């Protein structure tokens, strides 16, 4: 395999079973990544202060005892959708002048099977992957064990991906 082919294969593999990818063609020194760290910091503060990382809040949500989490996620989707519309309509470029890249997601049954499995885990741990990091930073060091197990779960999925129905 030539280097070019190898690179193409790696590019495709990145997009399999993923929503979140880097679509920039540009390369920058590592410290350019600090701006994502900064966005993460604001995000982490919000997670704690709005109690999104609270196990109790997730329990309330799945018992329909509180509107709080529905309000958070619903507002985020509306704000996100309006922002995306504006970016598309005004063809807003990135900070580096690139065109913002959007791509349609292809459906496979994995979203159902995986979604159900994740949902079960979400209610048990009280955390989706983002809050796992925030729970650890917020002082619950035991969640390191949960995070480690989540990484193991991801690894096992990767190892057995071909044998699972999609």
């Amino acid at each position, binding site marked *: 395999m030539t280097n070019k082919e190898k690179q193409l294969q790696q590019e495709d593999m*990145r997009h*399999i*079973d*993923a*929503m*979140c990818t880097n679509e920039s063609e540009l390369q920058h020194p590592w410290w*350019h990544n600090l701006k*994502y760290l*900064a*966005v*993460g*910091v*604001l995000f*982490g*503060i*919000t*997670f704690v*202060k*709005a109690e999104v*990382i*609270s196990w*109790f809040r997730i329990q*309330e949500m799945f*018992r329909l005892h*509180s509107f709080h*989490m529905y309000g*958070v*996620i619903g507002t985020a989707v*509306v*704000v*996100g*959708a309006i922002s995306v519309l504006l970016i598309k309509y005004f063809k807003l470029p990135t900070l580096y002048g690139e065109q*913002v890249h959007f791509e349609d*997601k292809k*459906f496979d049954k*994995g*979203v*159902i099977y*995986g*979604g*159900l499995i*994740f*949902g*079960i*885990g979400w*209610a048990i*741990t009280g955390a*989706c*992957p*983002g809050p796992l*990091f*925030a729970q650890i930073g917020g002082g*619950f060091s*035991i969640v390191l064990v*949960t995070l480690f*197990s989540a990484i*193991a779960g*991801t690894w096992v*999925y990767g*190892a057995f991906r071909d044998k699972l129905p999609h």
Partner: protein
Amino acid sequence: MIELLKQPWHWSVAGVIIGLTVPALLLLGNKKFGISSSLRHICAACLPANIPFFKYNWKKEIWNLFFVAGIAIGAFVAANFLQDPDSVKVADATRQALSEYGIQDYSRLLPADLFNWDNLFTWKGFIFFIVGGFLVGFGTRYAGGCTSGHSIMGLSTLQWPSLVATISFMVGGFASTNLLLPLIFQWFK
């Protein structure tokens, strides 16, 4: 101002900030919002083990690891410098249901009755840390995204597979909370 920041934030404030993360990442450098991918990049970086699923250029996605490191740092800041002195307010109906499970401690965001190191080598710890975490990591990757990638980024860009994913997350969560957890806590009694 700082007093205002210390109170628990309203859902609309959090929703707006989390929603704005989507355009922020897109405009800062064509990055799509998502968090569970970080777990995959950690696998790809640390233990790819020749598995095709982990054989990609994870360095291209290292921004995502900076992002999740930021989340942990931000949470540390909020928990140490912006902490609310009052205990967590939880709906009465939820409190009542949880009290039957022996959960009494509302001083922090997670019940200290469950989430402590003493429970690590018990069945409780096995279920709540090991099994729970495994399901989160396995399920999100199988689904191709989590609450951020599908429910926020995916729904924001009107991707119908992400709607199916979100509904599946919720169905799993409802079943787990209302059918599975009662059985688990019954077993612990």
